[in-house]
C-alpha cells in the first residue's frame, strides 16, 4: 500500500470511526437514561404497592382499641408517617427523614398521600435501597453492544476506505507506470547524446560550434539527471545499496564540475568551501542523488548572475542560493513528492523527496531555511 494511500485511509477511518462513535455514544446514552428510568420506575412500583398495603394496615390500627398499636413493618422497606404539617409522627426510619427528599444516593423514595388521616397521618413515606443489578446488566449490555458495533464499523470502514482511495491508488500507479516506461525509453537516446558530446570534446572538433554544443551538453545532462532521479524513485524499494567508505569531498568536487556548465550558463558565481577528505559510510548513488538534487535546485531557482555557495565541513553539507526562496506556508510540505512550491521552473517536484529519503535512510538531519525573494539555504547534517 502506498504511503499516501495509507495516510488517506487512516484519516478516513479516524473521521468515520470518531463520528460513528460519537453518534452511537449519544444514542446509547439516551437509551441508557430511558432504560434506567424505566428500571427505577419498576422498583418504585414495588414501593407503591407496599405503601398501599401499609395504608390499609394504618386504617385498621386507627380503628383499633388496643392499648398498644404495632406499627406495620415490611421486609426491605422502610416507612414513616407525617401529619398534615409534614411533621414526623412515627416510622421505621432511624432518623426522622425530611419528607420532601425524594431520591438520594442509593435509596429510592416514594411519598403517598393518606386521606382521611388515619392516626393523624397525611403522608406516608416509603423507601428502599435501589437494586443496582439490573442497571449493571444494562450497562454491560450497552458496553458489549458498543464494542461489537465498534468492531463491525471498523471492518466496514476499512473496506469503505479502500473503496474510496482506490481511484487515487489507480492514478498513482498509472503515473508510476508511465514514469517507469518513459525513463526506460529515455535511457538509450540520452546515453547516445552524452557519449557523442564527450567524443566531440575529446577529439577537438567543436571549436566552431562550442556554445551550441555547450547548450546541448547542459540539456542532455539535465535530461540524464531527471532520468537518474526517476529511476532512483522507481527502484528505491528494490535497489540493493552498496555502502562503502566514500570520500564525499572528492565526490562533491566531481559533481561541481558536472554542474559547472549549467551554473556558467546562468552566469552564477560559485563560491566553494570544501573541507578535504570528509569520509562517510554511504552508497555512492545515494550520495550522488543527494548532492545533485540540492545543487541543481540551487542553480535552477537562483537568480541570474547570483551567488551559489557550496560548503562542506566534517559536520554538514550546505548549499545557499540567492534565488526566489520558498513561502513560509510551503516549507512544511516542500519535501512531499510531486510538490513544487514554485512552478516558474521545469521539473517534477521529486528532487527534495529524494533528498529527504536519502537523509532518512542514513539518519542525517535536513534543515531548510528560506526567505521569499532572498534565497534558500539547505543544510544536511551528517549526525542528528
Amino acid at each position, binding site marked *: 500500500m502506498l504511503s499516501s494511500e495509507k495516510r488517506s485511509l487512516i484519516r478516513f477511518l479516524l473521521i468515520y470511526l470518531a463520528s460513528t462513535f460519537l453518534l452511537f455514544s449519544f444514542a446509547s446514552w439516551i437509551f441508557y437514561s430511558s432504560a434506567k428510568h424505566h428500571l427505577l420506575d419498576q422498583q418504585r412500583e414495588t414501593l407503591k404497592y407496599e405503601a398501599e398495603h401499609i395504608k390499609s394496615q394504618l386504617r385498621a390500627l*386507627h*380503628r383499633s*382499641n*388496643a*392499648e*398498644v*398499636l*404495632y*406499627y406495620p*413493618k415490611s421486609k426491605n422497606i422502610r416507612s414513616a408517617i407525617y*401529619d*398534615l*404539617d409534614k*411533621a414526623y*409522627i*412515627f416510622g*421505621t426510619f432511624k432518623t426522622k427523614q425530611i419528607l420532601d427528599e425524594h431520591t438520594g444516593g442509593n435509596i429510592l423514595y416514594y411519598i403517598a398521600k393518606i386521606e*382521611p*388521616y*388515619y*392516626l*393523624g*397521618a*397525611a403522608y406516608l413515606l416509603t423507601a428502599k435501597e435501589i437494586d443496582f443489578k439490573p442497571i449493571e446488566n444494562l450497562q454491560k449490555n450497552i458496553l458489549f453492544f458498543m464494542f461489537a458495533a465498534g468492531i463491525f464499523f471498523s471492518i466496514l470502514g476499512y473496506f469503505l476506505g479502500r473503496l474510496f482511495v482506490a481511484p487515487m491508488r489507480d492514478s498513482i500507479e498509472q503515473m508510476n507506470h508511465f514514469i517507469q516506461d518513459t525513463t526506460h525509453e529515455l535511457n538509450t537516446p540520452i546515453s547516445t547524446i552524452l557519449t557523442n558530446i564527450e567524443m566531440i570534446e575529446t577529439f577537438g572538433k567543436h571549436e566552431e560550434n562550442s556554445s551550441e554544443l555547450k547548450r546541448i551538453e547542459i540539456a542532455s545532462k539535465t535530461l540524464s539527471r531527471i532520468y537518474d532521479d526517476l529511476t532512483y524513485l522507481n527502484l528505491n524499494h528494490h535497489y540493493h545499496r552498496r555502502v562503502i567508505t566514500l570520500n564525499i569531498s572528492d565526490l562533491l568536487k566531481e559533481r561541481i564540475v558536472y554542474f559547472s556548465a549549467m551554473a556558467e550558463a546562468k552566469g552564477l558565481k560559485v563560491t566553494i568551501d570544501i573541507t578535504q577528505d570528509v569520509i562517510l559510510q554511504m552508497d555512492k548513488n545515494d550520495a550522488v542523488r543527494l548532492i545533485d538534487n540540492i545543487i541543481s535546485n540551487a542553480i535552477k531557482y537562483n537568480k541570474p548572475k547570483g551567488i551559489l555557495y557550496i560548503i562542506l565541513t566534517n559536520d554538514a553539507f550546505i548549499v545557499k542560493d540567492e534565488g526566489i526562496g520558498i513561502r513560509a506556508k510551503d516549507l512544511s510540505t516542500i519535501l512531499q513528492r510531486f510538490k513544487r512550491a514554485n512552478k516558474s521552473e521545469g521539473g517534477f517536484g521529486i528532487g527534495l523527496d529524494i533528498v529527504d529519503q536519502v537523509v532518512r535512510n542514513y539518519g542525517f538531519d535536513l534543515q531548510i531555511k528560506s526567505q521569499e525573494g532572498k534565497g534558500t539555504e539547505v543544510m544536511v547534517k551528517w549526525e542528528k
Partner: protein
Amino acid sequence: MGKIVFILSFMSLCLFAEELSTQEQSVEQNCLNCHQQQQIPSSLIHRRYLMKYSTAKRMEKAIFAYLKHPDKARSIMPSAFFSKFPMKEATTVDDSTLRKYIQNYLETFDIKKKLVLEK
C-alpha cells in the same frame, strides 16, 4: 447550695404535678364524665378529630370553635347523631382554661403514645 437547688427543683416539680393533676380532674369533671354518662366514648371522638384534622393544633382549633359555638356544621359527629342526642350548650368556661382543658384532652388520648415497633 446543691441542697437548695434540689429542694427548689423538687418543690417546683410537685407544684407542676399538682397543677396537672388538678387540670386532669377538671377535664374529668367538666368533659369526660358527661360523655361517659351519655355513652359517647371520648377516644372515639378524638379519633374522629384526628382523622379529619391530622395535627394537634388544627384539632384544638376545631374543638375550641365547636365548644364555643356548638352547631352541626362545627361538630365532628354526623348530623344523624343529633337526632338521638341534643346539641350541647355553649361552654361558659373562659378561653384560657378551655384551651388548657382541650390540650389536656388531646394529651390524654394522644395516639402516638400507643404506637410501638414490632420486634
